[in-house]
């Protein structure tokens, strides 16, 4: 089995914005390697000339009229936020 390196797992976790403990890095290193090993057999399938499919029922570019509607549930939406100020979401300083 090809094992991912510790550094690769740390890099992926950084991209995915999930803080991992050292134990988790080790656990996911093994588990991700198991999954990647499992899908290895796909390499044997000849897909030359084939299109990728992601929309299975054949719908293309479904659009709706671009019209402004008033949302009436601001309060309910903001009630779910951990922190708000003056009708905005509050986040930590970036700089």
């Amino acid at each position: 089995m090809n094992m991912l390196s510790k550094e690769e797992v740390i890099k992926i976790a950084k991209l995915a914005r999930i803080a991992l403990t050292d134990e988790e890095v080790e656990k996911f290193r093994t588990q991700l390697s198991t999954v990647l090993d499992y899908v290895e057999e796909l390499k044997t399938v000849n897909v030359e000339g084939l299109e990728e499919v992601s929309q299975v029922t054949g719908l293309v570019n479904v659009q709706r009229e671009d019209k402004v509607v008033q949302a009436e549930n601001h309060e309910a939406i903001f009630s779910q936020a951990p922190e708000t100020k003056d009708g905005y979401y509050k986040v930590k300083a970036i700089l």
Partner: protein
Amino acid sequence: MDFAYLSLTELRKKLDHKEISSLELTRYFLARIKKSDLNAFVTVTEEEALAAAKDADDFISSPGENPFLCGIPYASKDLFCTKGIRTTASSKILDNYFPPYDATVTKKLNEQKSVLLGKTNLDEFAHGSSTETSAYGPSKNPWDSTRIPGGSSGGSTAAVGAGLSPWATATETGGSIRQPASLCGLSGWKPTYGRVSRYGVIAMASSLDSPGAVAYSVEDLARLAEVLAGQDEKDSTTSPVEVPAYSKKLSADVKGLKIGVPKEYFVDGMEDGVKQRVMEAIKEYEKMGAKIEEVSLPYTKFGSLVYAIVCPSEVSSNLARFDGIRYGHSTREAKNLLEVYEKSRAEGFGNEAKRRILTGTYVLSAGYYDAYYKKAQKVRSLIIKEFAEVFKKVDILACPSSPNVAIKLGHAKDNPLFGYIADQLNIPGSLAGLPALSIPCGFALPADGQANSLDGLPVGLQIIGPQWGEQKTFNAGYAYQQVTDWHKKHPGE
């Protein structure tokens, strides 16, 4: 009086004829839920249910026709947003989430004046096939509480299987309706992709997610499909294809129906009892005049491999929205914005969700995209093509829903490949967007020791149709349930 396990049609009659009120019915099921120890529900909405029942009774008392589901209680998988009612996806990251809006399915059921009893348990974000990845602990199989109910819709199938609710909503991405319906002895409907709106259903893998239902019979499912299906402007992947009056068109005549039996669906490691029951069910169709033909779907074995890439890829994208800022769990430990993201997600997501996000992030990352995601989506096109070819020869496919009956609790946990193997007979159809049913077709002894019941545990027959071929699958399931009574068997009876 005993109201558990009655069909929706029977409940409708009793309500219309004032033999019972919605309030009595609701109290009856709430009492059963209270007594149950299957951990089928994350949240029981007693107060809201009693108010909705009174409202339904008022409506029934007023002149005019009642909607089919008016006053009939139901349970909803805790993945469907319910306005003002806690919706967790069985994840700690949404432990305290009260959606400001209703899913389209919820809205339709509210318009019918259905009565929501509560929100059912599932694998966290529907990631799993046993409910064991739920942040609220596993649900248990009503036939044997030491075993899994299947998943991810296992709370829904435990609830309906134990007679705690006459039916329940459920969702599929790759087997999450068929497999638990099979393991709990119920009828489950996995719709064609785009038949039922995904709006307000917490997303797992958007190119696969298909909301559906579990109930006691195909007739009930056909009635439910008429309510749940249809185009929705809030989900652009729903189809303009018309929704037929499925229940009115139900026909038990299968003479001349061509049923394909895909040989690749009788996999190594399948339990003998499962295979026997399914072959007996196919024989039953032959007796009714259907034509049975062995067919081959050689790419079947690649289905789970494609899914093992496509599903986590879409999961990693869909779960990116949980940032600890707008809703859901937010860390108290962060010093800067990046730490808000990283720690909120670390604290909120469980092991399975983390693994799928990381897997998806890896296969979508620069340098790997072509080798994994693009390749998988190309192989997916081969699976779709192969089904299309086979449906030129046969009307429907018949095969097992799961390679085994319910396994013991604890055996699925922390096996990163469990779901891909448990759902290998469901995943190819999901990748092709096909409609399917699982219906009870008997009992078999588990391979891993004794069952509580001498007869064993429920086995499910899977019926797969071509896209938009719901009617064909409903008819085939209905025909079988006219000549057998496996669907009328319930635990403890």
